[in-house]
């Protein structure tokens, strides 16, 4: 009833190849965007914006980045956290050197640096696959973390060894970053960047380049015999993936954390992004949002939900319970539904399409 594609005839391939070929999907995404743009910023508390929505959107972008590499191109990576760090430090240096340039420009440029680093650490993927590749990306993770600690130039010889986000103004005289920036401003900038980059990634994955990634993922030998150059396909996946990680890392520091030590980009962050990718669904952009929302919101829901039903527990316990739930779910999903929440979502839509005639 609610979700039918019958009667919606496509008369051109253009219409058939649209991102949302079904009318109900278009209406749905329009509602979601309208809520994100008009409702959430004006009707929610600063806490919801600063501690839930902003980090959720930023981590969703990082998850999309890892999904490009692991979900679409099939190259496992454990270095996402470090690539996010490269973006953050690059953005910090850029805004130190060119303080007058709009910070959003710096954030978008800082991804290019992490893309470059990503390409370098992607080179082993031409020779090794799977778990072994994951180990080389682990090397990237530790090497880059070491750089963040040992190269004082990166944090402007700051005595604390951390990067502190300076106040930057832009778009008129609006305070965009720094402690005085309002959550609504930060939210809108993050939202805009995430929406635009998600759309661009969608364009890549539905075109020739995205198909090349999936060809390498599904059957690399056949892909080569069709004319895909593995070198180009894999390195472009590393570049795009690291770019997105870098941009999200820069936003993570400049719009969420406010200040960051090297430990902010430790292996724990890489694993968090990997779990978001797996739980959300490998090879699905909408799944990246599901995964990021789920893992980011779970501890918060537990923290506020458990006392509400009369279970009083400490913050530490909530943290551990959340970790246990996520761990159990990862195992469950890997065994039962490797394509994650995104697959459940599409199954649900499939059921809805034929309801109430499940055999139609």
């Amino acid at each position, binding site marked *: 009833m609610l979700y039918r594609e019958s009667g919606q005839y496509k008369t051109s391939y253009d219409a058939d190849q649209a991102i949302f070929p079904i009318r109900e999907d278009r209406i749905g995404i329009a509602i979601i965007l309208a809520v994100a743009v008009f409702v959430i910023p004006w009707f929610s508390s600063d806490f919801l914006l600063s501690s839930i929505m902003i980090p959720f959107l930023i981590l969703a972008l990082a998850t999309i980045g890892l999904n490009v590499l692991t979900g679409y191109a099939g190259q496992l990576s454990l270095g996402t956290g470090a690539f996010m760090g490269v973006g953050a430090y690059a953005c910090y240096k850029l805004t130190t050197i060119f303080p007058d340039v709009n910070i959003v420009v710096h954030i978008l440029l800082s991804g290019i640096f992490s893309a470059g680093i990503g390409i370098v650490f992607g080179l082993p993927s031409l020779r090794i696959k799977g778990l072994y590749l994951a180990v080389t990306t682990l090397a990237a993770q530790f090497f880059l973390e070491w750089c963040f600690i040992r190269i004082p130039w990166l944090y402007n010889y700051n005595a604390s060894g951390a990067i502190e986000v300076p106040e930057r103004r832009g778009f008129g005289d609006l305070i965009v970053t720094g402690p005085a920036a309002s959550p609504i401003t930060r939210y809108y900038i993050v939202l805009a960047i995430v929406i635009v980059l998600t759309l661009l990634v969608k364009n890549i994955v539905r075109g020739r380049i995205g198909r090349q990634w999936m060809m390498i993922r599904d059957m690399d030998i*056949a892909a*080569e015999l*069709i*004319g895909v*150059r593995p070198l180009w396909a894999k390195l472009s996946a590393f570049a795009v993936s690291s770019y997105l990680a870098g941009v999200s890392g820069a936003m993570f520091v400049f719009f969420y954390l406010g200040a960051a030590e090297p430990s902010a980009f430790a292996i724990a962050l890489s694993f968090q992004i990997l779990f978001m990718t797996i739980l959300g669904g490998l090879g699905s952009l909408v799944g990246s949002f599901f995964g990021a929302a789920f893992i980011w919101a779970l501890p918060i829901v537990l923290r506020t939900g458990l006392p509400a039903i009369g279970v009083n527990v400490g913050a530490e316990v909530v943290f551990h319970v959340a970790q246990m739930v996520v761990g159990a779910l990862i195992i469950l999903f890997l065994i039962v539904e490797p394509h994650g929440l995104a697959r459940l979502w599409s199954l649900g839509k499939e059921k809805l399409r034929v309801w109430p005639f499940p055999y139609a």
Partner: protein
Amino acid sequence: MNARIQHVELHADDDGLNPGDVMLKVDNVSLSFGGVKAISDISFDILKGEIRAIIGPNGAGKTSMLNVINGFYHPQEGVITFRGKARSRMQPYEAAASGIARTFQNVALFKGMSTLDNIMSGRTLRMHKNFFWQVLHFGPARNEEIEHRLKVEEIIDFLEIQHIRKTPVGKLPYGLQKRVELGRALAMEPDLLLLDEPMAGMNLEEKEDMSRFILDVNSQMGTTIALIEHDMGVVMDISDRVVVLDYGRKIGDGSPEDVKNNQDVIDAYLGVSH
């Protein structure tokens, strides 16, 4: 059959060769893996426009021969001349770029992609719009995508697989997967199409369909075909010339009739008492 097919412009690129000219020539090729000689000193040729069968008992080196032709294996000795250009080694994507397409003995489709995307993937080498346009998916890149979709739809019509266009190929039955794989190879618009056991594991009806498709590809699109097949009835019916391998050596070469009456071939297949 669909009337539109008559106007399909799927045909091999004009390479200056006339039907009957030598398209691919294999000269004294030897390939070994360590001490195992997979192919020893084999020479044969494939003429433009013909259907050339490669047959032989299991382990005769047939698939290795195809792998050598499309650059997946590099022979230790010998030269391969394709459309007048001699080469001793090349990369698989170079073979693809020069007009050699291939299907596999064990279906090698991209399991996570739909039928449509699988066949679209065959167009990879013919799509040139750069990263910038791809990202924007606007203007040239969008037009290119639609232009190639038209071509892919022609192939889908030709192979009569319209109903599974959007189905992930992993869910398709084996016979249809084989057909999609042929479609993917056809999407490359190859000059030379290598088919590795296109009818393995099929029932009679599916074999008849596949034979018809192979003959149509050959006659309508003018594609030269080299195929490996174990079903002798099919081989004798559809191929113009047959080369027979056994233990990596060539033991017979000629028309189906010649090969059928060749004593070495009969011995290889039926065994001989020593």
